[in-house]
């Protein structure tokens, strides 16, 4: 499985609503970030969470977000960042 994104790529987290064992926190959906690291294929938690095998595996990324993009009223340094671990099927090319 080849990763769809590369380090440095701008991505946006999908904003869909989805039930079940989803590991994409709501606060980060719809936000724009940058791929900071590719962590390789991992079992799909949404499948594991419902008692199935976690296949197909999903590419896992560390994605970095500028705090000011996540929270428009963020108070803190302009360089402050938030890193969230996200699976490929939740990311879209930006």
């Amino acid at each position: 499985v080849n990763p769809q994104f590369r380090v440095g790529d701008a991505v946006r987290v999908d904003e869909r609503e989805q039930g079940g064992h989803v590991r994409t926190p709501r606060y980060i959906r719809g936000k724009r970030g940058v791929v900071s690291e590719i962590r390789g294929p991992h079992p799909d938690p949404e499948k594991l969470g419902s008692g199935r095998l976690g296949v197909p595996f999903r590419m896992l990324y560390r994605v970095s977000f500028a705090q000011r993009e996540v929270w428009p009223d963020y108070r803190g340094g302009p360089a402050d960042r938030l890193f969230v671990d996200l699976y490929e099927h939740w990311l879209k090319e930006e």
Partner: protein
Amino acid sequence: MMEHHDHDHDHAHPGDHPQADPEVALLEQAVRELLIEKGIIEPEALQANIEAMEGRSAEKGAEIVARAWLEPEFKAQLLADGAGTMRKLGVDLRGPELHVVENTPRVHNMVVCTLCSCYPRYLLGIPPLWYKSFEYRSRAVREPRAVLAEFGMTLGANVEVRVHDSTADLRYLVLPMRPEGTENMSQAELAALVSRDALIGTAPARRP
């Protein structure tokens, strides 16, 4: 002089709650009894597991940090491949991978799990109640500087605060900065300066 005191349950933190939800406790009891009754788990094995989990403390994490302070090569390995370095040391990772993040004068890291309470238990022991609290989980990503200030850490505007939300298969360990005045200390002496909270990123390493 101790500028920063340790935050090991010596006072209440935002969101500390004295006990688990009674409904959850009841559910746990029901499931546990069923599993034992049906012979799926042995009560002795369960007890041994609980004791092993409760017996674990942040000592292992502190030891690793002290060694990283003393051995640049080990530190480089740890930052490049946390899980691999742990395996070489014989630490049982039990699945999740480890990612070590380094604090510097310009970057401060802190760890949270907004979804539940993920945390490198095999290095830090059982997470403190505040780590699992709704308040910490929501505020750590929303206003990390305010949370850090409540823990006694006020960071300058020139410091970049990085919050790591462990939402998936990675567990984070913070490598705190080595305090001043520790040049001649041994690994064991250095490890004693590293609290669990320093490894979560809500406290600095103590000054000797």
